[in-house]
């Protein structure tokens, strides 16, 4: 058990180091000084309070989608539909914010509620097909992502379009989330962190959370023990969708204000990857999301300062995922465990 815990920290760390090593080699090959480039990256992400605010703002939607992935996977089901749920949430939120006429705090609460419900509803589809038809929830949730993206296209090119550019009307000023200390980061970040804490509490400090994790660890045994496995699966799917839906609403009210082309694109898959790197720990997921956001924010500074293209940062991000997922699979292999025991026989006796 102890060894597993050690690996769960070690593997992501080694993966990050390896990814950066490859990144540095690429930078050197481009005749840029990797140290200068990484310094620029750091400065762009955390160099000033303003940049820090931008990084936290960029991390907010990622926190939501990674928490969404965490929650479902804790119950043993893969929700790859975070993006679709995020978008459906933002669409519902956009309707409420621009059409209901309710503004201010009640408006915000109503928007978040509507977003959560829409996200939960969208997640219920793969959940129901999983428990009643035994279908692969991953494939279905991926397909629903595309349906949601195209549906959002209908909304911003037709139904809620305003003006000449294909985009919806903006959320009223009174319904926008307030910024923290005048930075770009809004109260959406606080909401995200609070949800992370609530999930942590639920999973590790309530009996229902314990049961849910038990289902995730061993579905057959849980069924044998009389847990309502199907109900847990559907429940975890819906809650996971609610989290993503609230995330979509918060992104709309806090950052984008309008639905436009590219809204939320890629956040769903990013979230799954971050959840895995965080080993499905909700609080670790928050940190991982901030780490990825920093890489994204800092890369623009890096490009401007050293001429290293932003795609190098994207390659580093992708490599972190590639290495971590492979690494985690590796340490679970029986061959690897046997290899370790041969390597450190003393530790086993101790």
């Amino acid at each position, binding site marked *: 058990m102890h060894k597993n815990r050690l690996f769960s920290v070690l593997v992501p760390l080694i993966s990050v180091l390896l990814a950066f090593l490859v990144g540095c080699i690429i930078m050197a090959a481009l005749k840029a000084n990797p140290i200068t480039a990484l310094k620029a990256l750091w400065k*762009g992400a955390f160099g*000033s309070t*303003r*940049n820090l605010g*931008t990084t936290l703002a*960029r991390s907010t939607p990622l926190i939501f989608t990674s928490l969404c992935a965490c929650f479902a996977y804790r119950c043993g089901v893969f929700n790859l539909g975070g993006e679709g749920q995020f978008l459906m949430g933002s669409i519902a939120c956009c309707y409420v914010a621009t059409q209901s006429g309710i503004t201010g705090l009640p408006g915000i609460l109503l928007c978040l509620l509507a977003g959560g419900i829409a996200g939960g509803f969208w997640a219920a589809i793969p959940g129901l097909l999983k428990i009643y038809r035994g279908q692969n929830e991953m494939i279905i949730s991926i397909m629903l992502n595309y349906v949601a993206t195209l549906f959002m*296209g209908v909304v911003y*090119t037709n139904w809620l379009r305003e003006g*000449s*550019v*294909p*985009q919806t009307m*903006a959320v009223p000023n009174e319904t926008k989330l307030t910024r923290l200390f005048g930075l*770009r980061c809004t109260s959406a970040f606080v909401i995200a962190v609070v949800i992370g804490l609530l999930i942590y509490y639920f999973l590790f400090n309530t009996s229902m959370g314990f049961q849910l994790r038990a289902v995730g660890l061993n579905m057959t045994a849980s069924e044998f023990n009389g847990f309502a496995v199907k109900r847990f699966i559907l429940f975890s799917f819906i809650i996971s969708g609610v989290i993503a839906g609230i995330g979509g609403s918060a992104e709309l009210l806090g950052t*984008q204000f*309008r639905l*436009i*082309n*590219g*809204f*939320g*694109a890629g956040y769903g898959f990013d979230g799954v990857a971050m959840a895995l790197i965080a080993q499905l720990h909700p609080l670790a997921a928050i940190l991982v999301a901030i780490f990825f956001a920093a890489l994204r*924010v800092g890369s*623009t*500074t890096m*490009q*401007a*300062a050293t001429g290293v293209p*932003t795609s190098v940062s994207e390659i580093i991000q992708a490599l972190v995922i590639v290495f971590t997922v492979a690494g985690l699979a590796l340490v679970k292999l029986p061959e690897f465990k046997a290899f370790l025991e041969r390597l450190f026989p003393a530790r086993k006796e101790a």
Partner: protein
Amino acid sequence: MKKVFALVLSLVMVLALAAPAFAADKTYKVAMICDSSISDGGWGAACYNAMIDAAAANGWETAYSDSIDQSAYYDTIVSYCDLGYDLIYAPGNQYTDAVLQAAEEYPEIAFALLNGGASTPEKAVNKNVTSLLPNATEIGWIAGALAGLMTETGTIAFIGGMELDTTKGKYAGYKEAAAYVGEKAGKTVKTLDIVYSNSFSASDKGIEFAKAMIDQGADVFFGDASAVDSGARQAIDAANQAVGAIKIYDIAQPADILGQNECIICSQVTDNSSLVGLSMQAVMNGTFGGEVIYGTLENGVLSAGKISDLVPAEIQEQYKAYLEEMIAGTFMQ
């Protein structure tokens, strides 16, 4: 020690702001954001070259981010603002909201919006946004007059990228000029309804749109959609090759790219670099803000590029006469 240093630094900054003369040897920096690629052989390339030319003429440093999503406009602009760029150059009406939002938060930075609305500068609370506004109707005229003269089927087409006011303006000018010129030459010229690719990078959509429009009889094309235009030209070239003669033509914009594809008969040219250059000078002189800089045929920003040999000499003469009328303001009067 640190405090003293900070004090000195801020003193220097105040002085630099108060007395522009002190900052004479400062290197100014301009950054461009663009949703199409700068190597699209069309809109993106022309706008990028405009910035490069203007920067070279005025001694500025440049940077750019291209092929960015609509949702990333604001983020990208703000990153350049944070990096201390003096001028943000956004070539397109679609950036208006992102630019206005950033302009409100960064009053000390200048924003130049190519194809921005005529009323956009007034909307900026800090008066730090300038619209560079080539006259869309005249752009449409330049292409439309030639299209009207050249069409044999009497059907011409236009492919738009996004449903922007400027794109609609170009389409309207194209349509009316072609109809007018055609009527003078004794033929009816019909312009197919405008189609939008809703993307500036989907060249495959350009191919399919052009094929579908050729099926409907269109034989002159004009467009406002970056890489989508290059896809359309590819389809036009293929259709011409299939019949073994160049019967379907394309008019390019906003740079002169005659010869890139064999179907191109002329380019509508917009000298964006002089517009960008004007805003750079305004930044250096401290006079930037809150205005609309127009680009017209009259002041030389708009023109027609080289005309291909595919256009018979007699039509070239007629076309040049129409261009003269446009400059003189007597076209369609």
